[in-house]
């Protein structure tokens, strides 16, 4: 291969037809309230560890639907439950995190 000094750049586009959303589908079966997120961001704002790891349940939820690796966020969760307390839609955020921590292989 000739070295041109540049190569094809990786596309940042999310192709929903190619994104594997099976983890999300599995999640909403086990934690039905996960579907109810309206992306208000309260969870991330109150999160005890968001300042270190950018954890936000909102980002986790959109991320797994867009094929992003949300494990770094999940692995930082201490399950303190503040997000559950502030979520206006009553999403069971702790169960959501724990369930995702089991779903990933």
């Amino acid at each position, binding site marked *: 291969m000739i070295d041109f000094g540049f190569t094809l750049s990786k596309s940042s586009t999310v192709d929903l037809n190619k994104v594997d959303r099976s983890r999300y589908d599995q999640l909403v079966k086990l934690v039905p309230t996960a579907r109810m997120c309206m992306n208000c961001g309260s969870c991330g704002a109150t999160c005890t560890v968001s300042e270190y790891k950018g954890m936000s349940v909102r980002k986790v939820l959109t991320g797994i639907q867009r094929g992003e690796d949300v494990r770094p966020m999940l692995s930082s969760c201490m399950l303190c439950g503040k997000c559950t307390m502030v979520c206006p839609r009553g999403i069971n955020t*702790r*169960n959501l995190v724990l369930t995702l921590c089991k779903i990933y292989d």
Partner: protein
Amino acid sequence: MIDRIPSGFHPFVIPFLIGMAFVLLYCFGAMIRVLYELSWQDRKKFFLSLLNPKILLKDIKDIFLNCLIHVPLWKRNKLFGYMHSSIAFGWFMIILLGHIEVLLFVPGRINLFYYPIFFNYFVAEDDVTLRGSLLFFLMDFFLLMIMSGIALAMARRVKNYMFGVKRMARPTFLNVVGLYSLWAIFPLRWLAESFTAHISGGSFLTIPANWLFRQFLGNELYMLPTWWAYSIALCVFMCVLPFTRYMHIPAEMLLIPMRNAGLKVRSSRKGFARVEFFSCPNCGVCIDACPMTVDNGNVKDCTVYLTRQLRRGNEERIQEISDKCLLCGKCEALCQVGVEGPGLRILERARRDYTVPFNYPAADKSVDKNHKVLYFAGCMTHLTPSIGRNITELLRKANIDFTWLDQQGGLCCGRPMFTAGRIAEAKAIVANMEKLILESGCDTLLVSCPICYKMFREQYNLPGVEIVNYIPFINNLINTGRIKVEKSDICYVYHDPCELGRGCGMYDEPRKLLGRSAGIAEAQQNREESICCGGSLGSLSLDFAQRENMTKAALDNLYTSNADAIATACPLCQATFARYADRPVKDIAEIVNQQVI
């Protein structure tokens, strides 16, 4: 009394012998298995305890009081207590007296296992003695006692509420078989003894029955079939016993010495835990105790069903039941045999495999050093900031040299991780926190959240640091005159938070503190019977919507006090109650701070 049957045998005893042999072998096998499953330290501890006369005596006393007299049930409801002790104690007495009879009258037969059970068939009354009459009287007396208990048990199927228990666990098929065979044993024994009474003699229950039957039945024909039926009923009961709730009878006799030996559950499935879940008598006290069963919801997620599913090994249901529980601890507090519902569930949760590892987000927190008191508010308190504000104001008023450990948040005590069953992960959090606290150089760690407080008390190793809850701390400030409070004329009902009351056994201190600054009323269910607010972090799977009725039921209980407002000592209880309460919900710190003069 003389032997009526020279061989001392009749085939009808065979069913009984089969049943007896089966149940004894089964229980022996189960005991060996449990002992094998114990860790060697626990096993050693257990055997040593049996050699310790003090513990042994306690074992015997506890078994007698719990298994035969059912003292805890008497405390709960007299009728319920009588029902159980009449059957258990009465049966025990009949067996005991049966042996005495054999020893007294036909001592040569004592080696025959079945003799005391079927004594009246095998003997003939040759002369009436006072000794014999007394024994016969006692036999009939205890038989009557048992049958009264069984009559109550039957009545309970209809009028449950009279027994102080509203709901029972749905019986399984084998439980029903066991129940009916148990109910059948004693009337059959009475019939059999009655048909034989003109030969073997009897007392006030059997003689008149014998006379009555003879009037229109003629006894000879019915004698043998009833003895057969009696034996078969015994056989059936004993054969199904290992697979029914009646397994609690032998299991509890192992549980009590094990607990007295100081054993703890280390796994949710093996060893001591196995004894524990076999000891569950399915009485249903935990169903009424459980805050989740409001409006008859979630009944099948109570501890009685946990023990049942653990016995069955139904993994899916075990997981569901373990995840749903609020871990409020009320079932354990009220359980007659001490099944550790929350503890078993946490251990059950600890069995899960998490493929995403926990990566402790190392907090770059630093603490202001060299203050005597370090105040830790906890995550939840950051959502109810008035608690933190009132406590720090009180500390300032009392001129306490303190600093805040988590003023900016970002620190968790690890309790939620712990209750989620991620023990190693919780320990990572604990280790980091311990380091931070010890580095601060404080001598007192003041904690206002009971959830954190329980964690600090039980899982932290902080040499030289006294861990205090803010309630006794403030009480002490008043005792030592550092702050003075006056009483307001508002009347509060104090809600015992699960983690502070049942969790840490603190019931009187909060009432004392609240009483110094306001009026106090008590709710119908309080102290160890306090109802969880429903907001508990203990539950993993309960959704927000499912908790609403639990909170409302807990509030209804508090409203029975007719107090003006609700006082509590937990930020989570406060936030949860405030969502639906029709009157103010305040933390004790806030109430006290307002009354400082």
